[in-house]
């Protein structure tokens, strides 16, 4: 059976190619043979669904979800926005997962040995489901910049990693969100993998004073767009087979 809808083909010109020597690790981890294009079948338009009872009440509050004997140190920040598809429709009830370094740029990960200290009250991950408008929000502390072994003196801008599902496995996406005005952005080797300047711009969250809580918490706005879909016109939809 042809699925009742198929996803628009991914515009590979706005995504980084697999091989981007400016980001050295990609050199040995990029296929050399072109991707094999596959028309959507049921296997691609379907994907996992998640429910509220799988998540805990603090899962979207990184300020509190690992707090032990106090709150984490850092700039309290709300991040919010909509998950939409390429047709501008809200992507409802989809799982959004985030992870990040603490205010000093240190990750709570057994392989991170950066000299900046772990914050005993900060875990650095969260997750949430979008609502009926495709809206999500979480609270955290703004992550610090972070050095990494690419060139001798490479530093990542402050960033938050995002993982999003959508309704079909073909929409699966992992990306990173940056903060408006960060002077490291033009120097970053990871952002530089994106060939399309406006696509890179769209990864930069904007300061949103309207959503900030006075005397408490700044806010940034970050919208995410997943692939759109189209109805399969002129196809034998109902009979299947």
């Amino acid at each position, binding site marked *: 059976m042809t699925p009742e809808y198929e996803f628009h083909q991914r515009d590979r010109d706005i*995504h980084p190619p697999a091989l981007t020597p400016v980001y050295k690790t990609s050199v040995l981890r990029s296929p050399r043979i072109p991707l094999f294009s596959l028309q959507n079948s*049921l296997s691609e338009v379907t994907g996992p669904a998640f429910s509220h009872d799988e998540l805990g009440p603090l899962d979207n509050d990184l300020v509190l979800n690992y707090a032990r004997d106090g709150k984490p140190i850092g700039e309290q920040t709300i991040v919010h926005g909509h998950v939409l598809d390429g047709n501008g429709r809200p992507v409802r009830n989809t799982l959004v997962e985030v992870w990040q370094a603490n205010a000093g740029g240190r990750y709570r990960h057994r*392989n991170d040995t950066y000299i900046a200290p772990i914050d005993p009250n900060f875990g650095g991950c969260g997750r949430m489901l979008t609502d009926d408008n495709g809206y999500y929000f979480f609270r955290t502390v703004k992550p610090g910049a972070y050095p990494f072994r690419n060139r001798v003196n490479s530093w990542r801008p402050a960033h938050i990693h995002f993982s999003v599902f959508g309704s079909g496995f073909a929409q699966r996406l992992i990306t990173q969100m940056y903060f408006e005005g960060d002077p490291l952005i033009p120097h970053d080797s990871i952002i530089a993998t994106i060939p399309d300047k406006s696509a890179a711009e*769209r990864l930069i969250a904007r300061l949103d004073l309207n959503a900030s809580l006075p005397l408490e918490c700044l806010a940034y706005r970050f919208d995410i767009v997943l692939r759109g879909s189209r109805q399969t016109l002129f196809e034998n939809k109902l009979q299947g087979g």
Partner: protein
Amino acid sequence: MTPTPFIPSYLPETASQTAGPYVHIGLIPKQAGFEIFENNFSGDIAGPGVAGERIIIEGRIFDGAGHVTKDVLVETWQANAAGRYNHPSDTQDKALDQRFRGWARTGTDFVTGLYTIHTIKPGSVAGRKGRKIMAPHISFWLASRGINVGLATRMYFCDEEAANSEDPVLNIIEQPERRKTLIAPRSERDGATVYTFDIHLQGDRETVFFDI
């Protein structure tokens, strides 16, 4: 029926970025080394009550220099034993298994590089209109440091030779040698059925990856 909304233009997709070396923090916090969520997603999805033949899928993921990668996120998506996806878009006339979501997540081991998934063998799924039934397969999605856009591939089963020879996806891969990169050999270990699916990101034995 609600009227179709006016859509002024298409929105471009958000650009992908690498998951980075610390993807575990957000997606597999236990592997990163800490406990935070009450309920964790896992690579063991053949829970009690799930119908079907229990299988283990394991393998390693190699880079272009032949080295085993040790920081890769592996996710799989599959139909249930009857060949139906747990998703409203799958309207095939087959039994739905409410206890089986069909999605697994794990990471390659920091020391051995091995990933392991405990699941059930999927049934075959209808192909697109006018095409043959798809042989039993599991969709894979890989993300990690050095991978800029998640890589999609499929695993097929070596003991489904007849179905594989008719599979509409395997058959449009021009070179027969490349089809073999998607077919996992089967073995038995301590009474369990194990399919070994090694993935080569680059080089002489490069796995077929799909633009889906």
